């Protein structure tokens, strides 16, 4: 059998394992190992006495992958970003942010909901994980909205949707994972997330203000804060500013002049600032220990999928499936843009049933080379490309698009995790309530994605400055 056919069989085997509920990391690792054994045994002519040799070679190849792939400086950003998020809870940053946002902008129509979006966007700048962000704001923001007569479904929808901002606005674990898989510059990808993240937030805000103006009972404005009260609320939110400035400046210096260091250093120093803040706020060993354990759990979970999937990817390398897939994609008689939109729609469907990280890790090794080929290759110049951007820029643009798709899937039924978390935090809300409340934000996200596709400059402006 040809390696490519083996590749297709093993990929089907992997999908079956995932669907029947095997843990994704191990399903991918097992599929990869089985595939390697098959390829090598085929190479040795399937003779029974050579099976042992095929097994040995394959096991040794697979056994290299975990150590080899996790020993990477770029991947060290993931645990750092996760730690920042956990420490931020202890530093009291969430409540401080919401309080500040409320005092400054709750006078708008739908004011508390708007404040929630802004506070979440701010928190997103220290948190790398969407689900945790929604959980925290469900506890802080929903009670206040309900207290002044908000529709409870609407309030829940706002929190579930706003939580998705955490993965676009850096720091973002999922953007780092994308960068690793496709071997692109992590710093530029993180930078690229800022404007689309802020852009998504603005679209949410416009939607909320619109709804609040049309349906007067949905979200009344909150007024009456004095300027003194407003300024008093700022210091508590200050560490966010520190962290954002540090991370930006270590990637790209917006004030002109040199950046201050590397993304790795920026992430770690950001964590250090939040750590000091948490200590100052009274964090003790017990809390610190649980922050470390929670960080370890989430990190290990992510890393296990990473190396598991990379065993499968190593097998794909021997089977040359990605090459065959991109040859097939580029041979299609359709415009590249139509194909790209089909790919994004496929992600929307897949995302309804799969976790974002698992989905990206499983699909990107095959899909990413195809998209790059569609644009005209890794090193194509903007003028010769299908999407009007150079190879590296296309990698960044597509990364932001798929991450936005993956985030979109966090709020779509049937398994929109953010919605489950919000419902789980609030006893008075059912999952159905949250899904109904989040519905308008589908439209907002749809608009955002369409605009990001139509105007790539929204994504590419910042990274092109850092060239």
């Amino acid at each position: 059998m040809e390696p490519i056919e083996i590749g297709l069989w093993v990929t089907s085997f992997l999908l079956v394992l995932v669907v029947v509920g095997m843990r994704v990391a191990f399903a991918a690792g097992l599929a990869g190992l089985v595939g390697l054994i098959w390829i090598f045994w085929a190479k040795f002519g399937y003779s029974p006495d050579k099976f042992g040799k095929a097994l040995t070679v394959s096991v040794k190849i697979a056994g290299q992958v975990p150590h080899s792939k996790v020993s990477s400086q770029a991947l060290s950003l993931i645990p750092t970003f996760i730690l920042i998020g956990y420490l931020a809870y202890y530093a009291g940053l969430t409540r401080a942010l919401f309080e500040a946002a409320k005092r400054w902008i709750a006078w708008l129509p739908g004011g508390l909901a708007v404040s929630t979006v802004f506070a979440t966007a701010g928190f997103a700048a220290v948190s790398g994980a969407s689900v945790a962000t929604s959980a925290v704001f469900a506890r802080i923001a929903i009670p206040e909205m309900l207290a002044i007569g908000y529709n409870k479904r609407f309030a829940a929808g706002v929190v579930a949707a706003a939580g998705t901002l955490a993965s676009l606005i850096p720091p973002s674990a999922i953007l780092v994972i994308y960068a690793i898989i496709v071997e692109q510059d992590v710093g530029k990808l993180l930078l690229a997330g800022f404007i689309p993240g802020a852009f998504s937030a603005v679209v949410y805000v416009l939607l909320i203000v619109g709804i609040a103006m049309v349906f007067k009972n949905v979200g009344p404005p909150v007024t009456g804060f004095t300027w003194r009260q407003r300024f008093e609320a700022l210091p508590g939110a200050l560490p966010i500013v520190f962290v954002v400035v540090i991370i930006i400046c270590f990637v790209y210096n917006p004030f002109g002049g040199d950046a201050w260091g590397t993304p790795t250093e920026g992430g770690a120093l950001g964590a250090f600032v939040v750590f000091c803040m948490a200590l100052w706020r009274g964090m003790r060993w017990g809390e610190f220990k649980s922050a470390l354990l929670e960080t370890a759990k989430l990190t290990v979970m992510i890393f296990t999928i990473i190396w598991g999937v990379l065993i499968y990817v190593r097998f794909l390398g021997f089977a040359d499936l990605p090459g065959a897939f991109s040859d097939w994609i580029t041979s299609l008689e359709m415009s590249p843009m139509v194909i790209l939109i089909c790919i994004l729609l496929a992600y929307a469907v897949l995302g309804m049933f799969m976790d974002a990280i698992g989905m990206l890790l499983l699909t990107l090794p095959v899909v990413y080379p195809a998209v790059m080929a569609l644009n005209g290759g890794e090193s194509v110049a903007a003028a010769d490309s299908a999407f009007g951007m150079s190879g590296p820029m296309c990698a960044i643009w597509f990364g932001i698009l798929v991450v936005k798709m993956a985030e979109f899937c966090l709020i779509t039924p049937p398994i929109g995790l953010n919605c489950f978390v919000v419902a789980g935090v609030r006893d008075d809300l059912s999952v159905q309530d949250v899904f109904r409340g989040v519905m308008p934000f589908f439209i907002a996200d749809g608009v955002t994605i369409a605009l990001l596709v139509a105007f790539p400059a929204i994504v590419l402006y910042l990274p092109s400055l850092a060239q």
Partner: protein
Amino acid sequence: ATEWNVSVWGKRRAFTEHVEKLAELVSAKTDGEFTLNISYGGLSKNKENLDGISIGAFEMAQFCAGYHRDKNPSITVLELPFLGVNTLEEEVAVSHAVYDHPAAQKDLARWNAKLLMTSPMPQYNIVGTGDPRDTVADFKDMRVRATGGIGQAFSAVGAVPTSVTATEAYNAMESGVVDTVAFAQHAHLSFGTINRADWWTANLNPGTVNCPVVVNTDAYDALSGAEREALDSSVDEAIAHYLDNYGALLAKWDQVLEEKGVTKVMMSEEELAKFRTTAADPIREQWIKDMEAQGIPGQELYDLVIKTLTDTRAGN
């Protein structure tokens, strides 16, 4: 038909042209009976290509000695600072002389690997920002991105070698994490460090990395006579193609320097001599001592390099 998998990394570039040429020649000479499938990173990580050869995952691979000095101590003689190699032709001559030495072959035999040919790299001259540094004293406190033996040499004259990966080198230079970066010309071009540069040391020639192409010994022994002949006889031609190709790149280099207004720094022979005595001599002596302690004939390997260099120059 015999099919070999070849593991290299990155993208197709000057650094891999001899492997591409080799594949072309071998296939042509055997009427497509013996083919090399070159994979850019699909089969292994670059630092683990020797492991892959040892396992039998693929039949041919490229790696650099400096990626893992303890895996291949003998051939790190070629990465000692200030060996005095000036051209790619000289680099090929000294590399192949060392590859033919029994000590190097024994060293690589632990990985079931047979040294086939080198990937000659030019000297890792540095690009820097600010005022040109053309004396040894100027190197004091200079933050330089340089690894291994070259890093040690700079450290010996008071510079501060700084760890950044090749892909972060541009960023590190832009952010002042380093003042200077040591790379071969093609890497200065592809990692963009030349775009930040005010000057480039044209004759410092601090040393280079050595990146052999090896084959799996069992696979090599299993080749038919005709196939082995096709492979062996193509090496020189593949190297010649590599040199032509890199030569074109070097010609372009001068043009790039001119366009970007980068100063070519020429150090005086006196300053170079100062650098050599401070940096090169102690590092070499230490290296020889370490090798002899492991039972590797360090002195003999070093002498072989120097003798080959002299012979090559005499031959020209």
